[in-house]
């Protein structure tokens, strides 16, 4: 199990380093169109060939990884923070406040998030740069993806509020912010961390879903989702093996996250 975790860490580090060093490793800019060589096979100049507009697939993969792997944690952080706030409030106060917040959680959980994202994306300003669009997409994912975590955190907080050490703390005069800061948050850390780790692969896949629909990150900026669009017509067009590389990277990264996550979950 340890070897598996070490492999996962190594793979994630390799992916992170490759994404960080995209500007140095990539043979060309992610948006540069080699118009004389669209759909080219792998070569020394283009290790993964070019896409249908002649853009270097390897460069786009590296930049796409940068977009997906660094912004998914941002979205996960937003979602976990929101979940901690709302779930924590519900668990701390209980009663009608808990009921109201849980009603909101149920509402968010039953809304088909893909349609909600499409609707929200439709009302966003059109004239935004690809960089802004990517931040916006992931922030939206974070703002809409907190509900499941909030329920877990609410349950954790509620249990903790009934625990003896909290009673003791309250009996000795701890209340409000001090109680939260000194007792609740440190003890909820494991749960919060687990929720954070769980959310990262979820948001990578969510962005990939949006990208496949053409509604994710704006062109020409790549993301793993937009790279997966090449596999849309897998049955009729039978893509070449190298076109599956983004999919393999996505599977490897998400699996690595899951492997690490198991450890965190055990701790939580």
């Amino acid at each position, binding site marked *: 199990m340890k070897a598996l975790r070490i492999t996962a860490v190594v793979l994630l580090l390799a992916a992170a380093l490759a994404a960080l060093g995209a500007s140095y490793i990539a043979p060309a800019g992610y948006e540069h169109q080699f118009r004389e060589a669209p759909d080219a096979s792998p070569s020394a100049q283009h290790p993964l060939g070019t896409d*249908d507009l002649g853009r270097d697939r390897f460069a786009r993969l590296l930049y796409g990884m940068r977009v997906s792997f660094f912004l998914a944690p941002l979205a996960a952080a937003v979602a976990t923070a929101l979940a901690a706030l709302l779930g924590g409030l519900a668990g701390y106060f209980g009663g009608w406040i808990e009921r109201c917040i849980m009603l909101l959680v149920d509402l968010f959980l039953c809304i088909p998030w893909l349609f909600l994202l499409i609707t929200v994306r439709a009302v966003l300003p059109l*004239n935004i740069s690809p960089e802004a669009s990517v931040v916006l997409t992931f922030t939206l994912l974070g703002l809409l993806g907190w509900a499941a975590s909030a329920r877990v955190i609410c349950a954790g907080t509620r249990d903790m509020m009934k625990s003896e050490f909290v009673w003791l703390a309250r009996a000795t005069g701890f209340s409000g912010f001090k109680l939260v800061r000194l007792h609740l948050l440190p003890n909820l850390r494991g749960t919060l961390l687990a929720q954070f780790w769980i959310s990262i692969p979820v948001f990578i896949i969510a962005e990939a879903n949006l990208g496949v629909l053409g509604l994710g990150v*704006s*062109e020409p900026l790549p993301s793993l989702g937009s790279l997966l*669009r090449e596999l849309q017509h897998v049955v009729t067009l039978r893509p070449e093996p190298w076109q599956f590389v983004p999919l393999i990277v996505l599977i490897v990264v998400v699996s690595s996250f899951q492997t690490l996550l198991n450890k965190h979950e055990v701790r939580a």
Partner: protein
Amino acid sequence: MKRFFLGCALLLASSLLWAQSGGELRFCLSAEPKTLNPLLVQDNQSETVSYLTGGVLVRVNRITQKAQPELATDWKLMDGGKRIRFKVRSGARFSDGTPFSSADVAYTMQQLMDPALHSAVGDAFRSGQGRIATRIISPTEIEIIFPAPVANLVNLFDTVPILSATSPLKEMAALGPFYIAEHKPGSYILLKRNTYYWKKDASGHQLPYLDAVRLEIEQNREIEALRFRRGEIHLINIVSPAVYDKFSTQDRSLVRDAGPSADTEQLWFNQMASAPLPAYKLAWFTSTNFRRAVSEAINREDLARIVFRGYARPAIGVISPANKFWFNDKLKPHPYDTASALRRLQQEGFHLDNGVLRDKGGNAVEFSIITNAGNTARENMATMIQQDLKKIGIKVSVATLDFPTIIERITQKFNYEACLLGGVNGDLDPNSQMNIWLSSAENHQWNPSQKTPATAWEAEIDTLMRAQASSGDEHKRKQYWDRVQEIAWEQEPFIYLVNKDALVAVASTVKNAQPTALRPQTFWNVEELEIK
């Protein structure tokens, strides 16, 4: 005994011959037809059913693009296009055996023009105030009188399937080669051979050759292609360039390039004065030089070669070269010339500042292009245009939106800057473009529903479009329409990008297929098709 064997052999031979001429043709509809009433047809799927089952007075030959006799053996236009007299075929019968006569034509026209029916097919015949009258001269002769001349009158009858005035089956009684035998909503429509069909081939054999046509309802184009590869269906009317290439590497005989289609792909800027746009952007978009510069900075050859894998050509204007008669062949494609584009922009006071184009007021030139998400070709064209315009210092953002949102933005809220969409031209006649080119029209996309024309050139187009619509002289109409094409070429309210080729797939078992660029591309001659 000898006679018995001879008889058996003859019977066997005739049954084999019969087997050869039969067969079931299968292809897919992308959705359930919205109606089976041929007079209410609006969508492609209903149009397919209507085309296969409806008997019409005249049919526009999809290859020659000329009207040819069908149920009408002859016709005569009178009063400058206000009256038309048809001599109709005698002895023809509907699929239930009901005889056909000129009374059925009169009945169909009454039904078609009934305001309560709201028929889009009928709208094309409305030329002026007043009712359309019919006069039955004899069972084989009828005159239809319109309140004002109707342009393209003869060809319009290609879209009017004749209904029976007396059949108990009403609109389900078919005069065409097939009739609807079975309909399982959401699954398939089975059309069977109309044994009363009047048409015969050169050797006197009754048409159609096919026994049946099965229309499978299949929304997924991927599955449609897969079923075609498996031999489960025989035709695909439109295949993408990528699928075309893939199929042709597997078996060259499966796919055919029927040449440039009549459809267009275009980009336009929002020129509405009331649109929620900054005044300086509106000033760019309403400037002819700005639009022409953008047009000249787009490399159409690259769009055709890369996005459509060479199965397209740079567009010249509103009419594709596929439309043989109405295309203005004096016009040439706008050249790809960034130097000329920059010169035009300089004339308007734009200047380059460290690679960024700025207007007179110092505003950096940037705008967004919206297009429909999921349409890979359009998304790729927008990305290539983004790259092309970067060369002249223009920053473009590409926003892919779901289709209903796009329609809402371009028809109701007008909160967009530029839009890239396509146009489907099913009807070759310029009259079908009235709802686009008249400045008062709702589909005058760059500046719709104008009370009075916003520009002199739009006023001129209005005059020309009205003149062509009210003239019965085809050559005069051509002159007017040629001038409209010239103005559209000069002013470029729509920046036409490419004309795609009509790429189709036809199974090698289908005999006599002659795919064309015009709809319905693969089965326009369905009565002559055979399954080997």
